[in-house]
């Protein structure tokens, strides 16, 4: 919790709204990348420490976050969602009080919003394979905002309010709306620093789900919740018949009646939920469905990630990162972030425990089958690229394939691959432009054309990185682990 410090907002229409003026400034791409990247300390002399200590140092690998272009895009979407939502919710305006009172007295979440709310119904949907880093990066982005801002005085006027900028909930394991509401009350109590006990009040009284929903709606308004993040959306597929629809409808009503933007996170399995109803899909298309796909073999971002984590080595003999090693890591991990880190960590762990104090690309190739056999079938399925394997591992099926299945009756088709190519092309172009400005300029037209072509094929679907016309100067902010470690 921090006290509000009001500053002049960069966007003129944000002026005069204390909720927007108290937010941190809109950061440049470079600053955002710096904030998102997390590099735990590393000291080369730790290689000489005892075996027991070095095993514990390995846990630092899980704390590493290497910001990537798509993360920047997600950060922009989060910033836009929060600000877009607050734009129509100015507590100093008459309509806002009237709306609050309506919500408080009508005992229903279905309240007609003020006219200007109509423009601010927004949500986003972020999906990706399990372990790709969705939750990690979103939590990292959210951490760049204070969760709760305490207002006391605005322009010499008493203004005692608590502004909960974001609230993150996990979708309950059974997709139940009641449990979702309960976790909301619990998270809100926590965000308000224990000043309230809504969870205690609710669990003591006999109230139905309708009551929970009404109260939740009211509290979203009272505490000016800026963004509601709902993780593990794939759990909704486990909801009893009609349950997923009920929960999604409720979330959409929250967007409609209160203007609270919602960011939904889930694995590819959750994509099927949106193929059933148009309005649900439309509401979360504020920035298009954000898809974090696994890295391809030649993806420069993959190499960047490997280079970043490679500096965190605690074997006594340094292991060199060459092309063979990179290929071996890709073969074993199939470009999934969490698996990459796991493989690297396991190889170091066993090298230290076995006193070999080094590992080879051969060890890396065997890591999954030797140390994580439970992952092997899924990795093999991804490696084979056989769509029949998706029947066994539903959550590995890319959203485009799922939506194509839904669209197959109408004869339309979604193609997401072109857009992903665009992303990589743009990224390579930036790298090239650093090395050879002329070459970079010559390639400048290509991604745009591809993007436009992709858009025509997409119907309503877009992917990460498409809308961003001003790309971050990645090289300027590229991670230099050794330099940072020295600092």
């Amino acid at each position: 919790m921090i006290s509000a410090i009001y500053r002049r907002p960069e966007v003129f229409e944000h002026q005069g709204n204390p909720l927007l003026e108290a937010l941190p400034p809109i950061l440049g791409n470079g600053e955002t990348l710096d904030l998102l990247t997390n590099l735990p300390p590393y000291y080369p002399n730790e290689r000489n420490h005892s075996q027991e200590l070095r095993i514990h140092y390995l846990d630092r690998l899980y704390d590493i976050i290497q910001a990537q272009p798509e993360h920047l895009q997600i950060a922009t979407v989060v910033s836009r969602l929060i600000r877009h939502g607050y734009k129509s919710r100015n507590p100093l305006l008459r309509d806002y009080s009237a709306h609050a009172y309506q919500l408080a007295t009508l005992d229903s979440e279905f309240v007609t919003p003020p006219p200007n709310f109509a423009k601010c119904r927004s949500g986003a949907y972020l999906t990706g394979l399990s372990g790709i880093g969705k939750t990690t990066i979103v939590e990292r982005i959210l951490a760049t905002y204070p969760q709760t801002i305490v207002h006391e005085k605005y322009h010499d006027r008493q203004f005692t309010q608590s502004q909960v900028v974001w609230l993150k909930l996990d979708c309950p394991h059974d997709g139940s709306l009641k449990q979702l509401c309960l976790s909301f009350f619990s998270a809100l109590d926590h965000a308000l620093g224990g000043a309230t006990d809504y969870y205690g009040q609710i669990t003591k009284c006999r109230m139905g789900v309708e009551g929970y929903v009404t109260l939740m709606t009211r509290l979203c308004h009272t505490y000016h919740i800026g963004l509601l993040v709902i993780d593990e959306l794939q759990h909704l597929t486990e909801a009893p018949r009609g349950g997923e629809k009920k929960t999604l409808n409720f979330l959409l009503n929250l967007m409609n009646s209160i203007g609270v933007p919602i960011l939904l996170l889930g694995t590819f399995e959750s994509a099927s939920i949106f193929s059933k109803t148009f309005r649900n899909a439309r509401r979360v298309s504020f920035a298009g469905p954000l898809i974090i796909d696994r890295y391809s073999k030649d993806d420069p971002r993959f190499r960047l990630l490997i280079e970043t984590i490679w500096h965190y080595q605690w074997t006594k003999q340094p292991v060199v990162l060459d092309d063979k090693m990179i290929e071996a890591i890709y073969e074993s991990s199939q470009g999934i972030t969490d698996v990459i880190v796991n493989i690297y960590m396991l190889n170091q762990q066993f090298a230290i425990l076995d006193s070999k104090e080094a590992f080879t690309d051969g060890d890396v190739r065997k890591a999954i089958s030797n140390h994580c056999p439970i992952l092997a079938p899924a990795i093999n399925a991804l490696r084979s690229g056989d769509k029949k394997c998706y029947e066994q591992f539903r959550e590995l099926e890319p959203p485009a394939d799922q939506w194509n299945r839904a669209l197959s009756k109408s004869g339309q088709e979604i193609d997401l691959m072109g857009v992903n190519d665009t992303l990589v092309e743009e990224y390579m172009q930036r790298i090239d432009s650093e090395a050879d400005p002329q070459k970079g300029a010559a390639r400048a037209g290509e991604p745009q054309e591809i993007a436009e072509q992709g858009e025509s094929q997409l119907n309503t679907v877009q992917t990460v990185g498409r809308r961003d016309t001003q790309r971050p100067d990645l090289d300027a902010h590229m991670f230099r682990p050794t330099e940072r470690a020295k600092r």
Partner: protein
Amino acid sequence: MRLPFFPTPFPDETLVSLFCRYHFMSGNISTTETYQQLTGIAYSWGGRNSATSLEAIAARIGPCLLMSTDELVDSLTIAPLHHWLIGKPFERKSEIMGLGQILNMSWPVRMIPDRESVSPRICPVCICKDEEMFGVAYWHREHQHCYTTICPTHGVRLLDSCPWCGSRQNIYTQLCLPSICCRWCGERADRFSGLTDDVTWFEELVSELSSSILRRNRRPSSDWTLGRAESRIGHGDPQASLVDTPEFVQFLQMLHMEIAHIDAQDEQARNCHNPRWNPFQRFRAEFLMESLRSCERPRARGYLYSWLVLGFAYRREQKTGSIMDAFGFA
């Protein structure tokens, strides 16, 4: 523990109105939680019998409103009215003992016997204006003084119950905000035709003076207050001669005649309107006289005398200039 939020007071809003708005916004299931959060003490019912000191409330709410205890009392209760008329500074611990007395918007009406339960009053025109301006209607201080019967701004009769069905709102147990539509019969209060009937000069006088005092939001700078006049009567104070004159007796007789006339009109009104609606019979001058005769507590009697003296003197001055100037209030 700091309150996570607290409403910003609207112009002329009472403390209990802020409590009501907090209750609505907080989403608390029952008023018990609201009272507990605002005072730190749990209440058995509505807080009327509790003996929480003003300091406890002020310690909780004062920081949220950026107000000291004195500022809170002066700007959110009708206590300043009492101060101006009685003239004795507050001894808070003894005089403002209970939360109920502070929350009771008709305070200090409790000093007068048989007036324990007074419903909060509304002006239907104010409700519409508030909703238009602030999006929500609230309880006004200017309407809540026990002898104020008409709205000082709009000149219409204040309502303490639904003019159509006679139902009342129990503000203490429900912590509800005023509404133009009755919760029980659904009729709109502003459609009632008797809102401007029978307004007497005495009622106008009382409401105007109450309003003038409350709008000042501060204590009197001089120790001259009307209450002193009554206290001087029994002690041969030369200034008390005002009420001992034949003119004063004549004034009272005239007041009686006016009341008789109004009673006759009321009778007609009762015949043409809802028979259950008896508009402020008990707040009229006759009631003041009755209370004066039956009241045994010296301070309460002094308070009533103050109003009568005020009315008499004002009448004698022929209402020249500001009402506050007419009585020498600084």
